[in-house]
């Protein structure tokens, strides 16, 4: 019998249980249990499942940005070899779903909202036939007579405050800027980003009677089930999603995407399994993008560099009616002081694919700009950039007055600086030259909000003393399998090879899903809760208080009592479902993970090419659940930071709105040669307000500010103060000193 044991997180759990358990697996840098499958090519990803009689679908994309599809010339295509159907069902989606929507996204594919929007699906016996037919489909369009703008900064763009506006206003910023000893008022721009996950979006749909089964690539299965059910007007109970391995998502798989809905509709009509895999170009053109931003930052400080005013105003974009607005100022709210403040995000309504959550929405681009502006202030005040940060850490969140749950920013700054050798930095630009390269150092703070979300997990302690952890939580390459096993192993006193973790199937209890860095702490808390219930049962069986129960290596001990788990279980399984619900701790405390980045770059004196030579990041995010997977998350974030600083940019053609660089050859993410040695320092911290695990989110922390450190290092190297990301060489060159001049 399984019970559900729910905890609503209204007050911090200060028992700090995981420091009193004795197995010693929590926090250890254990390998991911599914790692060998992945590196040997034997983990089955969504498109790789084999089903007899599977038909192949290829999406057809619009070649206009705005208007309606008047006619699809289907017949010619239906006559082509192998073609089974041409679908343009009104239940097909024309926009990607926002994360955690839990309801159908905008549907109806005969209206075109943006260039390359899906408008039809061609299904054939083979993939090649379907692709040929999809390219051959002739489409008549009527272009919109009153198109909206294609560019957020065009004068025609309609600009509005978002509904969920998180505008913060306090005091008088104008006056503070006027009174300030030092005032910085600068405008930065960041381009749109693609999520660029390795595995393209893919779904195989099949119906068993009125039940739909999807093998696909999604991040948040419990929500995705509801979204697709809503699209198809069926009961969510009748949908099952199976996604044990997901090859990255970075936000683009939070909500259901076009191929899933189209595959489900086609499979229903054809009464056979249908696979739809998006091409790399289609992924770039149709799934969620990160909005480009224009950010004005105002910093007003006294003579010592202490902030008296702080302004951060952003212009972002999205399609009309989309609620999501890149929350650029999210970390600015709580990071630094300055009571006189204005934080604001406005949205331009434009015709580009849906903007949504991509890799740390808000902080990724907000922090890199704030931290670059802070570097400008440090220079104006003439103090060390690390010292400037330290002088500006408020005791409570400005304006709101909320207390911080935990914050190891000072430790991160100090330990990071020490490990990196920050004291070797020369404060003025153009001081260090090695051959043809200018060398410079820069730093930035890291901050990312922490979120606990509802999650459920089932844990079975089997009669033989082994444990099974089950939840629909996904592992998108992050380490969910590893850390959930470690939590159960620690709580139940089992070596890690006695714990089996099964994930990614909606027939299992609903985990948090992978997004917003909340998967590990939320689903992990649910696992912990289930294990606590099992511990209670075990202590009763042993005849001791739960608090006095010691579990280690499959043996339960309390004082003189000692019994192996299998004896104690007497042939029975114990099955418990744990559930966590966010509660008052979310309002009572400002919760965030913190850190600091240090970067050394080389800028070519002739060509302006920038190469990152080394980076150090120090991070405090509560309890470290697995030192290896946490480190990898931080590393990955910093690599994305290199991309954001130097290479990544969605390039739109502003005449027709199409995306020009829609593949990995032209949309440049960092390659191995761009990534130097990166040092990651994990700080030990406990945060009882964040979760019963005393852990906070780490998934996205490594990107939140990283590009700022690189930008600041470019300035320090060669004197190019660039405010327009990415810092490609064409932008650097005009600022370079004469390459032949003697170094001062």
């Amino acid at each position, binding site marked *: 019998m399984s019970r559900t044991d729910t905890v609503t997180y209204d007050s911090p759990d200060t028992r700090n249980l995981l420091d009193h358990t004795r197995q010693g697996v929590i926090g250890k840098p254990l390998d991911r249990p599914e790692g060998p499958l992945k590196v040997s090519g034997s983990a089955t990803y969504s498109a790789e499942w084999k089903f007899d009689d599977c038909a192949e679908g290829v999406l057809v994309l619009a*070649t206009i940005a705005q208007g309606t599809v008047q006619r699809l010339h289907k017949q010619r295509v239906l006559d082509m*070899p192998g073609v089974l159907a041409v679908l343009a069902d009104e239940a097909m989606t024309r926009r990607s779903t926002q994360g955690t929507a839990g309801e159908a996204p905008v549907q109806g594919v005969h209206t075109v909202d943006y260039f*390359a929007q899906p408008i039809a699906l061609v299904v054939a016996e083979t993939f*090649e036939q379907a*692709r*040929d037919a999809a*390219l051959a489909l002739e489409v008549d369009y009527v272009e919109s007579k009153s198109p909206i703008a294609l560019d957020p900064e065009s004068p025609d763009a309609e600009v509005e405050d978002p509904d969920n506006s998180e505008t913060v206003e306090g005091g008088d910023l104008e006056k503070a800027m006027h009174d300030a000893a030092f005032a910085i008022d600068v405008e930065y721009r960041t381009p749109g980003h693609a999520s660029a996950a390795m595995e393209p979006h893919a779904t195989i749909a099949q119906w068993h009677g009125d039940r739909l089964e999807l093998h696909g690539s999604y991040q948040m299965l419990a929500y995705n089930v509801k979204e697709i059910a809503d699209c198809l007007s069926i009961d969510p109970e009748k949908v099952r999603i199976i996604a044990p391995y997901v090859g990255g998502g970075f936000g683009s798989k939070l909500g259901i995407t076009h191929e899933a809905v189209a595959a489900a509709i086609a499979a229903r009509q054809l009464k056979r399994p249908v696979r739809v895999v998006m091409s790399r170009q289609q992924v770039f053109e149709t799934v969620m993008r990160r909005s480009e931003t224009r950010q004005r930052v105002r910093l007003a400080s006294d003579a010592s560099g202490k902030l008296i005013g702080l302004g951060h105003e952003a212009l972002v974009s999205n399609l009309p009616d989309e609620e999501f607005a890149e929350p650029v100022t999210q970390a600015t709210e709580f990071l630094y002081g300055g009571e006189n403040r204005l934080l604001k995000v406005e949205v331009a309504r434009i015709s580009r694919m849906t903007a949504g959550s991509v890799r740390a929405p808000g902080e990724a681009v907000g922090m890199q700009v704030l931290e670059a502006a802070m570097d400008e202030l440090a220079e104006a005040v003439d103090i060390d950039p690390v010292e400037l940060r330290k002088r500006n850490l408020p005791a409570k969140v400005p304006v709101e007055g909320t207390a911080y749950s935990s914050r190891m920013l000072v430790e991160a700054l100090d330990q990071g600086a020490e490990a990196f050798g920050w004291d070797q930095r020369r404060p003025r630009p153009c001081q260090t030259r090695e051959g*043809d390269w200018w060398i410079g150092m820069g730093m930035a703070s890291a901050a990312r909000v922490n979120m606990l979300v509802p999650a459920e997990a089932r844990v079975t302690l089997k009669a033989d003393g082994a444990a099974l952890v089950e939840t629909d939580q996904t592992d998108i390459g992050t380490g969910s399998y590893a850390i959930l096993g470690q939590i159960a192993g620690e709580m139940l006193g089992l070596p890690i090879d006695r714990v089996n973790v099964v994930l990614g199937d909606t027939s299992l209890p609903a985990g948090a899903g992978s997004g917003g860095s909340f998967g590990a702490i939320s689903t992990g808390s649910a696992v912990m809760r289930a294990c606590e219930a099992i511990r209670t049962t075990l202590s009763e069986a042993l005849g001791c208080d739960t608090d006095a129960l010691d579990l280690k290596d499959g043996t339960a001990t309390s004082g003189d009592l000692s019994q192996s788990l299998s004896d104690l279980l007497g042939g029975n399984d114990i099955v418990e479902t744990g559930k966590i619900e966010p509660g008052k701790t979310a309002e009572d405390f400002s919760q965030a993970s913190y850190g600091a980045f240090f970067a050394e770059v080389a800028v*070519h004196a*002739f*060509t*302006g*090419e920038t*190469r990152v030579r080394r980076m150090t990041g120090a991070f405090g995010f509560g309890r470290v659940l697995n030192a290896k997977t946490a480190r990898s998350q931080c590393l990955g974030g910093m690599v994305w930071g290199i991309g954001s600083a*130097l*290479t990544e940019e969605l*390039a*739109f*053609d502003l*005449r027709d709105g*199409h995306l*020009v*660089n*829609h593949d990995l*050859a*032209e949309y*440049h993410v*960092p*390659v*191995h*040669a*761009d990534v130097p040695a990166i040092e990651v320092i994990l700080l030990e911290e406990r945060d009882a307000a964040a979760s019963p695990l005393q852990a906070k989110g780490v998934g996205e922390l490594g990107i939140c500010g990283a590009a700022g450190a690189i930008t600041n290092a470019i300035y320090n190297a060669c004197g190019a103060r660039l405010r327009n990301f990415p810092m*490609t*060489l*064409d932008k650097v*060159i005009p600022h370079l000193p004469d*390459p*032949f001049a003697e170094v001062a």
Partner: protein
Amino acid sequence: MKSFTLDHATDTDSALSALRGGATTIAGGTNLVDLMKLQVETPDRLVSIRRTGLDTIVEDQDGLRVGALVTNADCAADQRVRTSWPLLAKAILAGASPQLRNRATTGGNLCQRTRCGYFYDTSQACNKREPGSGCAARDGFNRIHAVLGTSEACIATYPGDMAVAMLALDAVVLTQGPNGAREIPIAEFHRMPGEDPSRDNTLKPGELITAVRLPAPTGGVQIYRKVRDRASYAFALVSVAADVSMEGGRIARCSLAFGSLGTVPWRDRAVEELLVGETPSPALYTKAADLLLKDARGFGHNDFKIPLAARALAATLHEATQG
């Protein structure tokens, strides 16, 4: 992808006869297959030349003969190439990725098509893909496009690296065709777009590249400088291939070729003449760059290539002459 037939030629003659029958050559397929997937190219007959045995490197008194089917990886690893024509090895290794270089061939590399995004996107106008449809790149996003040798019809670059080194090395492209064998100096192999950008090179219908001949080594300092947006796996924004010999502090001999600057691998003999006999100095590099770029014209996003080329040239000459 459209349906197509694939035949394997076993020697040059069978390849040529297939070509006479209207087949298209496929070698490594690393460029052609991508283009076929997107239906930028839609051949209905392919002849694979991978089994023709044109995959040897032979050295004789005239220089080195690299077979058309020698892979980029093998060519760059060849000890003779590395010792006597290091420029070629360096240029090849600056391109693509190890996986691609294992597959890509000498002949295919010479014939690789532009990376202009509008050429690859069949929703866009492109005179190279569809003559007469227009050139969407000219007023579009043209960051990677050419500033030299452009025409009203097309501003696309030849994007490769290997051919730039070969141009500096005075290579000769050897072919077989319906009218027998030809020797095409590499400077005459790639063609500027003019009014007909659909033809990238001067190969005639039915003609096959069999080898590339490199003349005897010059013994000069050889440098390939590739400037790009990331450290690897990116096409050049501008590249410079240099082969320079010094005598008594003066430039005695020099050949210079530029990649991704023009619509074809670019060489300007007047620039070389200006440099020969001179003592290297920043002022001299500027003079050379001014001459090289006197007719250069940007189209907006690619304007930066003009100062970048001048800087890349200065850096390369500086490096080549200071040693």
